[in-house]
């Protein structure tokens, strides 16, 4: 075996480049390296990282929180008693109230206008808006355009995007 001098990763005998850090392990010095300033690169990287994190504002009148199960993120919702879920893409006439595209909505098959959630006096319900890949509550596919009651802890799925619904119990 060969131990990489750069990162101490153990590589198999006969390896020519470290599989962990990519450093050259053996052989000739035919590959030349270039010196160049990395300041400019670090600069632009810094700029990118200084853009604010999507930290959700904590509001007191949050009545529902969406827990994105794949990434563990929480999306609290307040202010409004009705909102649509979907993803925003170019040239779209009607925008969803909550854009799920940062959470791999596209890859998971979320439609542009996927579903609507509404709070009424007696209950909270969800309705599929005729999405391509369907809306599910706890694994059961919903008929589109029909209201379905949501309970605390239900797991809904928009296409393959799983979201746990946390309701404020009052």
């Amino acid at each position, binding site marked *: *075996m060969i131990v990489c001098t750069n990162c101490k990763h153990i590589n*198999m*005998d*006969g*390896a*020519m*480049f*470290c*599989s*962990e*850090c*990519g450093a*050259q392990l*053996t*052989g*000739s010095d*035919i*590959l030349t*390296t*270039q010196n*160049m300033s*990395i300041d400019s*690169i*670090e600069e*632009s*990287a810094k700029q*990118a*990282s200084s853009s604010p*994190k*999507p930290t959700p504002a904590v509001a007191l009148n949050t009545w529902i929180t969406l827990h994105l199960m794949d*990434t563990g993120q929480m999306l609290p919702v307040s202010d409004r008693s009705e909102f649509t879920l979907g993803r925003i*893409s*170019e*040239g779209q006439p009607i925008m969803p109230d909550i854009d799920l595209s*940062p*959470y*791999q909505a*596209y*890859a998971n*098959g979320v439609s542009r206008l996927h579903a609507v959630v509404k709070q009424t006096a007696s209950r909270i319900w969800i309705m599929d808006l005729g999405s*391509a*890949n369907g809306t599910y509550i706890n694994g059961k596919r919903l008929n589109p355009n029909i209201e379905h009651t949501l309970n605390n802890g239900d797991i809904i799925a928009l296409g393959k995007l799983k979201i746990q619904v946390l309701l404020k119990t009052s």
Partner: protein
Amino acid sequence: MAPERMDYYALLGVLRDASQEDIKHAYYEAAQRLHPDKNQTAGETELFLEVQRAYEVLYNPKRRAQYDATLPKEETPLLFIKDKVEYSRPNLVHLDEPQLIYVLLEMSPRNVDEKIPAPPLNLCLVLDRSTSMQGEKMDIVKAAASQLMRTMRSQDIFSVVSFSDRAEVIIPAAFQADRTKLQGRIQMIQTGGATEIYQGLEAGMQEIRRNLHSQRVSHLILLTDGQTYGDEQACLQLAEEAGRQKIGISGLGIGNDWNDIFLDALTSRTGNNSAYISNPQDIKKLLMDKFNSITNTLAEDMLLEFKLNEGIDLNYAFRLQPEGGPVALESPMHLGPILQDTPLTVIFEFVVQPSAAKSNQANLLDGSLKMAIAARPTPAPPLRIRFEQSVSDTPGDVPPPLSIVRALSRLTLYRMQEKAREEAQAGHYESATRHLKNLAQHLLAQGEKDLAKTALLEANHLERMQSLSENGGKEIKYGTRALLLSAAEVSK
């Protein structure tokens, strides 16, 4: 011209020392393909009869011996192609732990000056017309398709299919005379609907199958900007069938939303690859590049049938030239085409287990390479491929060949991004970020400033959002892949 003698072994596509079992198997396969009940193109019935004759002779040991006696002693070298094999190490070592060895296989035109006439094409363009293509993208695709059509020669067969969640044949496969009228039909394509790639592939394959012929290069070019849902398996099966019928499938992905892993899997089943078009303005250029390389075909998809010996694992295979792309590891392997001006170069990574490194010789891979040379009417005989290396007590002190070092220095980068993407997918964000940062460092060292920057930004994105951005991931993947190609060209 003296009539070329039919080589019975070449007809069946088996090696001279093939077993009775192999011959029977090859015959059944050929018979299924060429049977008069099924074949559609002219000349196949005659070929079927020849294959039958070959089988009757070779399957009978007595007649086979008689026939063998009439053959020249040595296997005649291939007419158009020469092969070269290089190893990363001069010898293996007797070791009680696994060891690695890299093998570089290069198949190149035997005589570069001798121009072989470019084969006629049977080409189908399959165009995504889903809602997301609306606007500039669709306009450019239409213009590019029209331009491609004008470039077609009179002997080429051409068809166009558009698809969303169903497919329409815009231009049925035929020799196209009235091109102005056809251009009008392309202009009429309207966007709308979802993306179901299977629909488009199916219709496109049907158009191509109307004119399947061994002396015509059949190829399907898929242009898409979206992901397909639920029909991936069906698509892959279709591609496998295409691979058997020698129909090439290439993919051009526009923008950020298409699934590159799926498109790679699809195209690699026919020995081709996918390309990433970040800017719609590049559609025309990439489509023309693709067309030029298809017209330049010397041998279509080279098929490597192989078996690995005990204690040998084939870890990885990658085509460096003519178009860089991963190669699926199961036998038969679709290595890809040889072009008239560009050799086919594939690098293999083998793991040799201690059990295989006991004797003085390690046999890595035994196989035969089957090819169809488009310009040649009779089937070319398969080429025996054997990778083997001696084993001794001490490692040799000969440095690895330059071509392998160059290729691996770049392949290492490609594999690092592959690893990082896999890890990000599996939720191991920390190691994914680390690998991306390492990658950025190496890219910088090799002078690839822009790509290094992309990798670094992507590492940041990963830390913040716990996912890769769609465009960054693709840019790094296809960027490092392009580096591989340039490495292969430099070593020429």
